[in-house]
């Protein structure tokens, strides 16, 4: 066992041990606080192992594997489980464990008012999530990734529905589960097709072009669901019903990025399918713009961030579609940091104001300076302001899509960069500047150390991660160059323009009169067109189909059984008269039977 493998195993198993302890030891879970200690200790050890592993990658670019046979067929092994250590998994492990640790520490304060039992349950789910995510990240083949993929789906369901007594949260959990599960069919069928075609679940088999296209398209369906791309993005805004730290960890930084991670991981497969890549590029860019437009009209701070997440995931998918694995993966990394920061800062504000509406906040900067700083830094990074991490990764994305598909995605993503800056500016100006809009906002005060600590920690990578692009690229074994040319200049100019416009519009607090274009988008958004298509489809396709199947079940399957029963009853009724109850008749029957047997015995050989 080489040291890198050992680090990966430690990173994988400590959260699992924490989750198991919390799941089995009910007294521990019931107490609340000790459960948090166990979960966070597990995450800290995992984080330490991940960082050690990552630094180890700086002077070691060999791939390390430790696998044990899992599914056998005769003497050969079909699939293995274990850990696969290379630049991709090491980088992703650091991102996941760092954000998870920050979020869990933040949760100590954020979930403080929960009853101890719910508190313990919350941290149990968190530990389980971290294990599932790490299982997915270190997967040596697609089958193990699929297992992790489904496990994070389950923990996502559990955490969205954490406040399960609230009907909207329960519905949101079920909706997220349905939508992603529908998409996960793509991954399942994709890996079956892959196995049928290549006999392996590995990452890099060479396939014939049609098979490669089919497999990658099926995988991409799963990516669309998990990473909330149009048209399967509908679950992500609803998932904001979960506690805010959960939104930060699962629905912004890590779990939704699993789709992007899958494409990064299966890059050798996607390289063989140019058609899939073009579709990804188009759909990613479309999602980026579409979600940014919807983010413009949200007044719920978490929903704004949720649509923003969809939009940024669109960037990543577009970059991967353009063939830039590094662009997509680097943006995933920086996005994980600044979006987690944004969500946690939003959580801190929500905790103080007890409302998600930005119009209920206002003027928080004076009373919550640290939260306001953290949110602003995150927003600036997201807007792509030069010098912050988002700037570098977004430019890498833009650079990769430049000139592809008639330059349309490039233009769309540029426009999206502008819109991103605008809606983030709006949130910052309305929620943190201007005058407090109510009693609660006026008396808000800064959150405690467990909540502000993670904000400070996450601010560091949000600011500096961009400068480590070269290191990041080296670990992935990809070439990296960054030149401040026309593209980055345009993008940052657009970003600054967006912030400026936001200041012009919202600089003096929320407006009574909404600007006309935004009002128009709002009207369109209020129609909930995509959701209504699904609702229509559910009513008119799924339910009709279900009714049809129920009809078949009731009248064909059950009908056959009922027919048999009815036949026996009716047959018996018809045959009953031949039983006279008179002994001589029975005797006659016996005699005739004997005579018949005798005749058969004597003459039967004529047959």
């Amino acid at each position, binding site marked *: 066992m080489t040291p890198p493998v050992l680090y990966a195993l430690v990173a994988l198993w400590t959260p699992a041990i924490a989750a198991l302890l919390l799941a089995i030891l009910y007294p521990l879970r019931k107490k609340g606080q000790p459960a948090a200690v166990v979960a966070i200790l597990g995450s800290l050890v995992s984080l330490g192992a991940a960082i050690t592993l990552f630094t180890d990658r700086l002077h070691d670019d060999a791939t390390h594997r430790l696998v044990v046979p899992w599914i056998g067929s005769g003497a050969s092994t079909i699939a293995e489980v274990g850990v696969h250590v290379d630049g991709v998994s090491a980088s992703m492990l650091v991102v996941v464990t760092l954000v998870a640790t920050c979020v869990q520490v933040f949760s100590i304060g954020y979930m403080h008012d929960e009853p101890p039992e719910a508190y313990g349950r919350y941290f149990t789910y968190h530990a389980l999530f971290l294990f599932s995510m790490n299982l997915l990240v270190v997967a040596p083949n697609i089958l193990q990734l699929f297992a992790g993929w489904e496990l994070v789906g389950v923990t996502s369901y559990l955490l969205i529905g954490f406040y399960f007594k609230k009907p909207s949260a329960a519905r949101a959990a079920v909706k997220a589960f349905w939508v992603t599960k529908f998409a996960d069919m793509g991954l399942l069928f994709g890996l079956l097709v892959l196995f049928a075609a290549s006999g392996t679940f590995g990452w890099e088999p060479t396939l014939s072009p049609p098979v490669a296209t089919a497999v990658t398209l099926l995988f991409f369906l799963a990516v669309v669901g998990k990473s909330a791309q149009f048209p399967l993005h509908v679950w992500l805004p609803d998932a904001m019903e979960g506690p805010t730290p959960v939104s930060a960890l699962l629905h912004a930084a890590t779990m939704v990025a699993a789709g992007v991670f899958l494409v990064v991981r299966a890059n050798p497969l996607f390289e063989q399918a140019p058609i899939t890549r073009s579709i990804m590029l188009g759909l990613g860019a479309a999602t980026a713009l579409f979600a940014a437009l919807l983010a413009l009209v949200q007044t719920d701070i978490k929903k704004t961030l949720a649509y923003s997440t969809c939009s940024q995931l669109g960037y990543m998918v577009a970059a991967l579609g353009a063939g830039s694995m590094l662009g997509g993966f680097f943006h995933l990394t920086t996005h994980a940091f600044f979006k987690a920061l944004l969500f946690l800062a939003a959580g801190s504000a929500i905790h103080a104001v007890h409302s998600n509406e930005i119009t209920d906040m206002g003027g928080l900067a004076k009373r919550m300076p640290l939260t306001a700083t953290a949110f602003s830094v995150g927003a600036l990074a997201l807007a792509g302001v030069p010098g912050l991490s988002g700037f570098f990764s977004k430019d890498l994305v833009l650079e990769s899509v430049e000139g592809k598909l008639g330059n349309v995605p490039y233009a769309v993503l540029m426009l999206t960069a502008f819109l991103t800056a605008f809606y983030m500016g709006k949130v910052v100006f309305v929620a943190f500047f201007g005058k407090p809009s109510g009693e609660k906002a006026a008396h808000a005060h800064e959150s405690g150390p467990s909540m502000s600590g993670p904000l400070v920690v996450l601010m560091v990578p949000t600011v500096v991660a961009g400068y480590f692009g070269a290191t990041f690229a080296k670990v992935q074994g990809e070439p990296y160059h960054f030149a401040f040319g026309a593209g980055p200049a345009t993008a940052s100019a657009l970003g600054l323009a967006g912030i400026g416009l936001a200041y012009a519009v919202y600089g003096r607090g929320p407006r009574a009169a909404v600007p006309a274009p935004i009002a128009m988008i709002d009207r369109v958004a209020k129609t909930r067109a995509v959701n209504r298509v699904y609702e229509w489809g559910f009513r008119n396709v799924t339910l009709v189909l279900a009714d049809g199947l129920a009809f078949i079940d009731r009248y064909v399957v059950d009908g056959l059984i009922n027919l048999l029963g009815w036949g026996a009853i009716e047959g018996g009724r018809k045959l009953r008269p031949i039983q*006279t*109850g*008179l*002994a001589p008749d029975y*005797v*006659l029957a016996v*005699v005739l039977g004997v005579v018949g047997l005798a005749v058969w015995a004597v003459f039967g050989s004529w047959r």
Partner: protein
Amino acid sequence: MTLSHVLMLASALFCVGVYGLLTRRQAIAILLSVELMANAANLVFIAMSRFRGGVTGQVFALFSLAITVAEVAVGLALVILLYRSHADTRVDLASELKQ
């Protein structure tokens, strides 16, 4: 007297028994018919023993007689019960299970 003569006699006895079984309605007469049939079978056993040698047939005939005695005892008991409940011994009276 050959084997076939005896077998013909036995067959005739058996057929008489069957005829009686089918046509009679009195329980006693039916029992008598059954006895005829049983004795036709006994006759075959003994005839086989007589013409083929060996005692197996005779032993079987003895067994058969013993069983027939038991059967008649049970049969007559039934007839008595039938008479007690119906004041008659016609078997077609006993069709209560049908009703």
